[in-house]
């Protein structure tokens, strides 16, 4: 995929970390409208830190983040959300004592969103409307987390560890839902995913992070050709497929 669509999310030279230790060292990422892009990498490669820095949860030490040409760099997380970039964090950060519909409503009011969008996208949540989120299953909670991001009508959606603690069957359904979302609404999606093979079926492009830098990037088809490279990135050794 050489002719990239106009970048909706544009990240350049991002450097971020904690207490002076840079975990992310100069990362460039771009995601176009309607694109689903995945970030691969071993534990500690800097995937979560990258997303946290883009979403404003931590302050990057260098680099820029633009959304449709508008700078988001160094804005606090609550401001970044209002400008149209939503993050589903890996621990989901749901309000577990609030009901499903309350979780959505509290997010929707902020940006003038509508909770019915979410129930249309995830019909499985409809019967659980009044249930406290804390008692839902992991897959249902992940749906609520994505739904909560959706009701804010983001232009860019970041999803960290979509599959954490979920059964592969549910992961596939969620990935397909994300794909459908991108196709139908022009949202740019950047996700972190450990199930490489499942992910490669739905994403457009992918980046491989290793020790804070991008070592490989390309379309899903290209990455599928290079599973040895991917394995290398995860295991830190050369493995011939």
């Amino acid at each position: 995929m050489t002719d990239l669509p106009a970048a909706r999310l544009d990240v350049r030279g991002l450097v971020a970390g904690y207490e002076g230790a840079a975990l992310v060292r100069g990362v460039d990422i771009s995601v176009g409208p309607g694109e689903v892009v995945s970030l691969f990498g071993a534990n500690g490669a800097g995937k979560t830190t990258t997303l946290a820095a883009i979403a404003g949860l931590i302050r990057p030490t260098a680099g820029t983040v633009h959304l449709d040409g508008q700078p988001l760099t160094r804005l606090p997380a609550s401001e970044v959300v209002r400008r149209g970039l939503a993050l589903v964090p890996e621990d989901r950060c749901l309000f577990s004592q609030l009901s499903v519909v309350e979780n959505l409503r509290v997010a929707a009011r902020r940006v003038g969103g509508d909770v019915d969008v979410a129930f249309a996208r995830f019909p499985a949540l409809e019967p659980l409307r009044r249930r406290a989120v804390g008692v839902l299953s992991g897959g249902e909670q992940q749906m609520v987390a994505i739904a909560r991001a959706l009701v804010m009508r983001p232009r860019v959606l970041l999803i960290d560890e979509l599959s954490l603690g979920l059964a592969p069957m549910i992961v596939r359904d969620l990935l397909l839902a994300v794909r459908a979302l991108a196709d139908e609404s022009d949202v740019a999606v950047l996700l972190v995913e450990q199930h490489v093979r499942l992910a490669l079926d739905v994403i457009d492009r992918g980046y491989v992070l290793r020790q804070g830098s991008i070592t490989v990037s390309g379309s899903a088809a290209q990455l599928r050709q290079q599973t040895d490279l991917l394995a290398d990135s995860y295991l830190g050794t050369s493995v011939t497929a």
Partner: protein
Amino acid sequence: MTQYFVFLVLGIGAGTIYAGLALGLVVQFKASGVLNLSHGAVAMIAAYQYDELRKTGNLVLPWIGLPHTVHIADGLAIVPAMAIVLTLTAGLGLAIHQLVFHPLRHAPALAKVVASVGLMLVLQALVIAQFGVGYGRQPGGLLPAQPVHVFGTAVPRDRLFLAAITVGMAVIVWGLFRFSWFGLATRAAAESDRGAQLIGLRPKRYAAACWAASSVLAGLFGILIAPITSLDPVKFTLFIVPALAAALIGRLTLVSLATIGGLALGMTQSELLFLTTKKWFPEWARSGAVDLVPFVAIVLALFIAGRRLPVRGAAAGAEPMRSLRTADRPRTTFVWLGAGLGALLVLQGAYRLALVQTFIGVILLLSLVVLVGYVGQISLAQAAFAGTGGFLLSRLADGHGVPFPLAPLLAAACAAVVGCVVGIPALRVRGVQLAVVTLAGAIAVEQVVFKNPTIAGGELGAKVPDASFLGLDLGARTGDAQPSIAFGVTCLVVVGLLALMVGNIRRSSLGRRMLAVRSNERAAAAIGIDVVKVKVGAFAISSFIAGVGGAMTGYSQSSLSAQSFTVYVGISLLATAYLAGITSVSGAFVGGILINGGLLATFAGEKLSLGKYYLLISGVAVLVTAVLNPEGITAAVTARVQSLGGSKRRGKAVASRVPPLIADRLGVPQQG
């Protein structure tokens, strides 16, 4: 029959302030997971300000040093006066949130408890400094009080108005949380800070609004109730205890139950007060029966609803304190003891008296080092244990002629038994809630036992005869220089023995088990430590030491009164211990110097003429320590010395700066 009903209705007066404060406590807990022990003091300061504004037209601003009196207008009407004071109270609530509880939102329970009692002491000292102790300050009535006939009985009309206002406010608060988007956002922001940020909320704003609103509520109820209860900085501040009982009845989250609980407590107390005047009511049980009500309510609420109480705020374990890693060396203790002996020989008059107070203070603080420092059990009841030791000593030595080393040891042993009993709630209750139980227990003991004329000697106080040992007269008032050097040396020997013992505990296997319980009870249990034994044992040791301290207090005064062991003594002990450093023996020595009546206080009073402001200054110091430097002065100095000596401990704790989002991915242990 009608009188029973009249007292029930009269009880609505106190019930109103309990319910009003409980409402605020629930709102604050919902918003930031804090149980704010200074909430009663906020109500008090507003009531004082309002009374002053109405009487003199002067608005007294809550600070000293800068000009703090503004003349508004003479003969200000009720509504504008109330509006001005409540606006000021809202500002106070915002400041409290911004400066104290917001910075402490992820802090362990101990820092929050100390901050809130520090705030309580500051507000109380401020009121005393600005308005005088003001016993019997009687604000004019606000609500019409003519009798009205209910069920054929004449009852004061104002109680019915108060009940209506309380219920009205409760309905408003409940409705706001239940139906408004603001309430929803507040509940969301309270539950997950980061979740709120990720949906575009600024969590701090919602918490701040709740603090302002709850402070306004406290101020309003304080102003409304002051004409009934009269204004008194000691009593008013302690309305927090029944209010805490009411809030706990409402499981810290239910506005309805908290309000009903508050009103019910007030009515129960009033009815009980009436019953104690009956002939059949046992003489010995009259004193303090009323103060037993909130304590019983708190214990019942925690035991019955304990499992269903939200764990927020109490969930955070004790923080890993740097100073706990290194045990106190006996050498350091001997240096302190040597300095104490030197000071004893040099100092005279008021300073020697202060030195003896310092020695006794060290003993009392050592009891906290074991209990709070080593095991992490927060106790505000040390003065009650000390008092048990002191009054029992009087009984044994004065009543039964038990000689010197035996009488205080026996008295302290009995205090240890009492400590074990108090320790039993600690098996189920922890953190802030344990602090609440010990606070209520301390008040109950003070009112029921220490102020009971049939037990503690009443007006005259309990006599304690001078001690003598092997023919040596150790009395404090022997000779012309009082207190005598012999008594000072006796205190110093006791301090030395206890300090070495406490230092030894830290280095022993028991000490390691205590530290394990402190950092994680479940993990400790998982490696085979008997948590129950360690906790109860710590309470026993701690209250034994406190009992010895109380006995030495007894010897230092010829007669003991409840005044030496009030609940505020217990509160200041915890605050001072924390200020000095609650985890080490050296911290206890530093704390002894800082204690009210100790060396520094006397120096500040005599040389700097700051005596009037000592309580205020020390309260502020406690607050600043809790917010900025949670390990206390001693640890800060030690760390500075170590870093000067090129210690290998470079860099500050990285872990504490890593946000939880990433902390677990890095394998960094998460905090609070």
